[in-house]
């Protein structure tokens, strides 16, 4: 549990600045430092056990089915990194407290910093590699926030995005790699994986997994060719650079290489990829560092170079090299973090980081000069500092590695390293002081103490390596290699070739290089250099532009294109499905057809075709559509579907009225938009789809179902079960009353929707006065029409009531009845106008819809009382002389709900549109 707690402490700490910021920056810093310190102490408490060769683990199940568990592990390697993360973290917290300006959102900074610390600590403490992935990506995300901290600067935003895109991409590759690794090893816990070396290296997935994991590690650790993001991440405040980009985050990739070293290293693939990436990075970045003028840029490229060095050592695959790598991780963290902090101090004191504008600071800033000298010389690998020791170890390993190009390149990189380090020191602190705007001076202890502590470590480890760091390096190297390592690090091995010779050569060469610097610089400045940022930006720009072009080309908002694509897929896939399997021919005989239906059919076709051809003349098209509806109604009557016929007739009337109302708001003709080719294409598609639908309908109608259809049950049960002679009605209100329940609600919603829409359009440019140019002849409300419609209203209602009452047994029902009522009312609107009708309306149409839904619901719920499900019908026969026997069915009550809903919906829609068509007040 303690490990999980340690991992959680920084995250808990991240919550505190929001609460403590009101007490001042000191308290806020102290609070988060308390969390880091607590974590550090808890880690230290495990040191004896680790020294004894134990591995501390805790396990918490999170997602066991996947193998993603909160399992933590503390061994030598994790210990080394945890100490770096928390130790340097504490120093950074102090430094940042004094570094950041009071005007900056300090609490936010601390929160981001602690989030990062937690993520980083999580990486090194994870036993489960999926958990490691979680923390891994979190470091990318939190560093995105930290790099972009000065978010008003474009450089910061771009740097942050570049770092996120690069390390994020690597992280995604690593997801794939680690999933493969775990899959091969049979588990995602390191304790499992580290024991499966043979199985992993024998698996065909080894190479892809290795490549993907390396992609993750190299992007994170800024290895060539993914190094470009690190210099641009320097847009971050200096404490961030010191922490993330020297000591911790960029080491995460190295950590992963070390962590998986026992199972991945030792193969030719590993050797060639990792060593060459390391060597190239090491020498290339050292060269670039030599020609940079920004202090932080020099340090950034130096970091890249040193990361390359460590990568190179890990790539070698030998125990001694791994030990050297681990040692250099420690050494580099100490001197490089100190250097970043010092660069920040110089920046603060002189307001510049350009080495060309600096110089002579040794007098004005003696403390900084002393500290910088120690750290810089260590970076250069000058005895007796720790950098010397680890560099010697590196050169020693390189010297023993074939082919010869490796030791040569290593020496060359060391040479450059000496050169840029000396340049850094000399140009900043020695020489003549230029005229500074403000006299520079050493900062307060809050700023110089953190690098001083690190510089002390640099010296101490250099002088007494075994006492100071031997134990830690042993433990870490043992954990890395999986075998007990007892390193022997000493300051002076005597005149031991070849490392010492190489080292001397490096120093000598560096002096030569510095001597020739002006000439080299001129050559460098004159050379054409590929700019990584420009390339990255160009790549991103291209990607975004292509994506935009693709997306806008595809989604240009054209409805007809969407329809065309949709219809094509319906047709193609439907045809494919049909043709790729056998179908038996239909068994039903075709019925005979006589003269009149043929004529009607011809009329139907002609009207439909004409409506299509003349659709631009909207009124005519509507008239033709009316004919289609008319013939359709007649066909229903002819084909013995009286219910459908009644419904169709009434629906047609109401539809035409609504459509005519809608035409008010449209131009009388549709503008011609479609060009010849598109017309042909769309026409062809329409014909094809129509043919397809017709073919499907024909196929279906000429066949019997393969299984007895359920309609047989409906026919048989209509009277005995549902108490009605009319099976259509019993299906609608009883067998499938629930469908009807849904559909009347659809109708109701549609009306509410029309109402809400017209309501929102009232007073906008849509609600223009109707186009009276077509004609304003005659009377708005002709008396004859008024008189006739007054007479028709009660008649229509009577018919409606009649249709409603007999619906259960004969054609009719609530739906038709509602429509007939509505037609009676529509006539009043037409004859006397909306104002007249609205003034005489007692029941709001809204209420009818609401009441309809409620009545239908209540009828359905009524059957709960009998312990029956929703909409269970009940019926009985009543006697009321002198009437004939009549039936009382709950279904009729449900039908009343249908009636109300239909009537309310139609009238609400009509009324809303009519209101919109009225001339607006104040227009």
């Amino acid at each position, binding site marked *: 549990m303690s490990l999980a707690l340690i991992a959680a402490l920084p995250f808990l700490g991240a919550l505190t600045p929001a609460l403590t910021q009101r007490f001042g920056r000191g308290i806020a810093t102290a609070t988060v430092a308390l969390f880091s310190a607590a974590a550090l102490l808890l880690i230290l408490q495990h040191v004896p056990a680790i020294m004894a060769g134990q591995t501390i683990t805790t396990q918490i199940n*999170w997602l066991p089915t996947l193998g*993603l568990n909160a399992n933590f592990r503390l061994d030598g390697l994790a210990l080394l990194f945890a100490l770096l993360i928390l130790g340097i973290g504490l120093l950074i917290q102090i430094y940042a407290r004094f570094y950041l300006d009071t005007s900056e959102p300090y609490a936010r900074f601390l929160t981001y910093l602690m989030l990062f610390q937690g993520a980083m600590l999580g990486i090194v403490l994870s036993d489960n590699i999926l958990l490691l992935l979680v923390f891994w990506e979190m470091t990318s995300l939190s560093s995105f926030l930290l790099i972009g901290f000065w978010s008003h600067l474009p450089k910061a935003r771009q740097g942050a995005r570049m770092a996120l895109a690069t390390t994020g991409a690597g992280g995604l590759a690593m997801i794939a790699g680690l999933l493969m690794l775990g899959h091969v090893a049979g588990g995602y816990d390191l304790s499992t994986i580290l024991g499966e070396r043979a199985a992993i290296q024998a698996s065909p997935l080894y190479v892809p997994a290795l490549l993907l994991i390396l992609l993750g590690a190299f992007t994170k650790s800024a290895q060539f060719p993914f190094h470009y993001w690190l210099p641009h991440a320097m847009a971050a405040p200096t404490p961030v650079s010191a922490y993330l980009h020297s000591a911790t985050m960029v080491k995460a990739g190295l950590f992963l290489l070390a962590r998986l070293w026992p199972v991945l290293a030792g193969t030719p693939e590993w050797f060639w990829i990792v060593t060459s990436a390391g060597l190239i990075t090491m020498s290339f970045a050292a060269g670039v560092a030599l020609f940079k003028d920004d202090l932080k840029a020099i340090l950034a490229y130096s970091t890249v170079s040193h990361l390359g060095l460590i990568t190179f050592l890990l790539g070698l695959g030998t125990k001694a090299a791994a030990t050297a790598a681990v040692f250099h991780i420690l050494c580099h963290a100490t001197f490089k973090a100190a250097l970043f902090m010092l660069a920040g101090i110089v920046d603060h004191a002189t307001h510049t980081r350009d080495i060309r504008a600096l110089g002579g600071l040794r007098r004005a800033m003696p403390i900084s000069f002393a500290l910088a000298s120690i750290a810089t010389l260590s970076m250069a690998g000058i005895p007796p500092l720790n950098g010397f020791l680890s560099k010697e170890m590196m050169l020693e390993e390189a010297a023993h590695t074939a082919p010869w190009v490796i030791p040569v390149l290593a020496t060359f990189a060391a040479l450059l390293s000496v050169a840029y380090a000396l340049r850094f020191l000399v140009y900043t602190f020695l020489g003549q002081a230029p005229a500074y705007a403000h006299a520079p001076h050493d900062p307060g202890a809050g700023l110089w103490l953190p690098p001083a502590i690190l510089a002390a470590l640099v010296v101490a480890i250099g002088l007494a390596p075994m006492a100071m760091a031997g134990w830690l390096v042993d433990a870490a190297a043992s954990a890395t290699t999986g075998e007990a390592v007892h390193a022997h690090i000493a300051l002076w091995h005597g005149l031991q070739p070849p490392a010492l010779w190489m080292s001397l050569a490096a120093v000598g060469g560096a002096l030569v290089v510095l001597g020739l610097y002006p000439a080299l610089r001129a050559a460098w400045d004159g050379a054409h250099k590929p700019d990584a940022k420009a390339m990255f930006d160009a790549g991103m720009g291209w*990607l975004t532009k292509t994506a935009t072009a693709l997306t806008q080309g595809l989604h240009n*908002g054209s*409805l007809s294109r969407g329809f065309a694509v949709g219809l094509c897929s319906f047709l193609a896939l439907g045809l494919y499905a049909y043709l790729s399997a056998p179908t038996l021919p239909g068994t039903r005989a075709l019925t005979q057809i006589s003269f009149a239906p043929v004529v009607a059919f011809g009329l139907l076709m002609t009207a439909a075709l004409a409506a299509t051809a003349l659709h631009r003349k909207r009124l005519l098209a509507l008239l033709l559509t009316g004919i289609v509806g008319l013939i359709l109604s007649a066909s229903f009557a002819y084909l013995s579907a009286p219910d459908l016929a009644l419904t169709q007739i009434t629906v047609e009337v109401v539809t035409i009225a609504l459509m005519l109302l809608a035409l008010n708001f449209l131009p009388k003709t549709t503008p011609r938009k479609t060009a010849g080719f598109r017309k042909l294409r769309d026409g062809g598609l329409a014909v094809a789809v129509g043919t397809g639908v017709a073919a*499907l309908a024909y196929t279906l109608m000429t066949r019997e179902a393969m299984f007895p259809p359920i309609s047989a049950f409906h026919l048989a049960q209509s009277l005995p079960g549902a108490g009605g002679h009319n099976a259509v009605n019993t299906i609608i209100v009883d067998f499938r009353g629930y469908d009807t329940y849904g559909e009347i609600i659809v109708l109701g919603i549609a009306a*509410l929707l029309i109402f809400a829409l017209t309501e929102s359009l009232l007073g906008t440019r849509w609600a223009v006065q109707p186009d009276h140019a077509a004609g304003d002849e005659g009377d708005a409300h002709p008396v004859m029409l008024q008189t006739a419609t007054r007479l028709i209203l009660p008649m229509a209602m009577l018919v409606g009531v009649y249709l409603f009452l007999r619906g259960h047994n004969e054609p009719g029902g609530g739906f038709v009845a509602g429509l007939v009522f509505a037609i009676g009312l529509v006539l009043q609107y037409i004859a006397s106008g909306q104002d007249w009708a609205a003034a005489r309306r007692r029941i709001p149409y809204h209420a009818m819809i609401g009441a309809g839904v409620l009545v239908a619901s209540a009828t359905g719920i009524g059957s709960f009382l009998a312990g029956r499900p929703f909409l269970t019908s009940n019926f009985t026969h009543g006697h009321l002389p002198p009437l004939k026997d009549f039936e009382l069915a709950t279904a009729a009550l449900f039908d009343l709900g249908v009636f109300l809903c239909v009537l309310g919906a139609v009238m609400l829609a009509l009324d809303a549109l009519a209101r919109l068509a009225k001339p607006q007040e104040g227009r």
Partner: protein
Amino acid sequence: MSQLLILPVILPAALAGFIILFARNALAVQRAISGFGTLALLALAITLIQAPTQSYFLGNWPAPFGIALTLDGLSALMLLLTASLALIVLIHSIATGWDAQGRHFHALFLFQLMGLNGAFLTADAFNLFVFFEVLLIASYGLMVHGGGQARIRAGVQYVAFNLLGSTLFLFALATIYSTMGTLNMADLAQKLPLVGADDTGLIRVAAVLLMLVFAIKAALVPLQFWLPGTYANAPGPVAALFAVMTKVGAYALIRFGTLVFPGDLPALGGLLAGLLYPAALATIAVGAIGTLAAGALPRQIAFAAIGSMGTLLLAVSAFTPEAVSATLYYLIHSTLATAALFLIADLARTRRDGLTAALYMAAAIAMAGMPPLSGFVGKLLVLDALRSDPLAWTFILLASLLTMIGLARQGSDLFWKAPNTEAPAQSKAGVLLCLAALVALTLAAGPITGWLGQTAAALDAPEAYIAANRLGVAE
């Protein structure tokens, strides 16, 4: 007999009816009723998710002759998801005053919930059509809520495209009914394996047409054209609610793909999976590329939503219990993440302060599938379920990258480059609730995936579902 099963449908319907009848001009009453209804639905869903698989026979008619509702793990899950999302959306709508921007918001909202719940519960293919209509028309109403030319124009696209889908749905149902003589899904599941090998053409047509209908709802490429404009122009909370609308399509695909048209059905021979797979890959690509291309935030989220549907359907297309289980987890995640982003986009329209930025970052992390939120877990589950498919991995991971880059750029442009703290702060309660749900989904991933595993196993072997329908047995 327990009446609980029908309540998720009739309760919101009756409450909406009540609002229209008695409270259509009283916003406070409407809010109270809506709030009560949503909470009640949440309570119902929590009750039902613990219930065993069972059916409810409307009108007391035995299946397959009447309409049956059947509740299983998947239905209950969708009910719970819908109710939770509804609560989040309702809180946001009320707190930000969106519901007062036009007429009938609450009635339409409740009808929308009724439509969703009805679709998730029904065991009858035709009844599914009916509820598709209910939720389509209600969602159209919500979409154009508040008016405005761009919104109404986009609304036309939405409704037109979906009506095309409805028409196709009718053709598909006609095909099914006239070949199989039944519409009950359990009945179909029992009868389809009995179809003779020499007469499978029409069954395949029906299956493909149905799949296309659901693909329109799920915005599967090439039927996604309606989504970007719709989501981008809908009012913020409505767009958030729509996060579950695409999931209706996914639900129906899973339901039909496991129950009615399972992969081992001889008549189909893997037809659906074979079609679904490339379409899902294309959907991922279109979504990710669209997210990268960005533009305004709502449109970008719409594309991210398309991309997440692609990932989801890619997992569905495998139709293994493991993949379905991963799908369901991803489905919950993607719904909540999309909703959270849309709500944040709504807040960010006016005010872009530090807290909004932090919320955006959290939601964007979830959407892009980055740790530590559920998107990452969901992505791992999907990748793990598709572990023998490098192509799927490539698509999913690359899409993650593009989504991440796109959302990061949007975030840095919106909150870093152009912060705005002038406008008055709006309530973030809905967003916070949504993110809390995402966090809970992440933390409780273990128990949740365990439960989903059982649900997926039950989908793979739907005997209990079929048995619950008591086919042909009258009470």
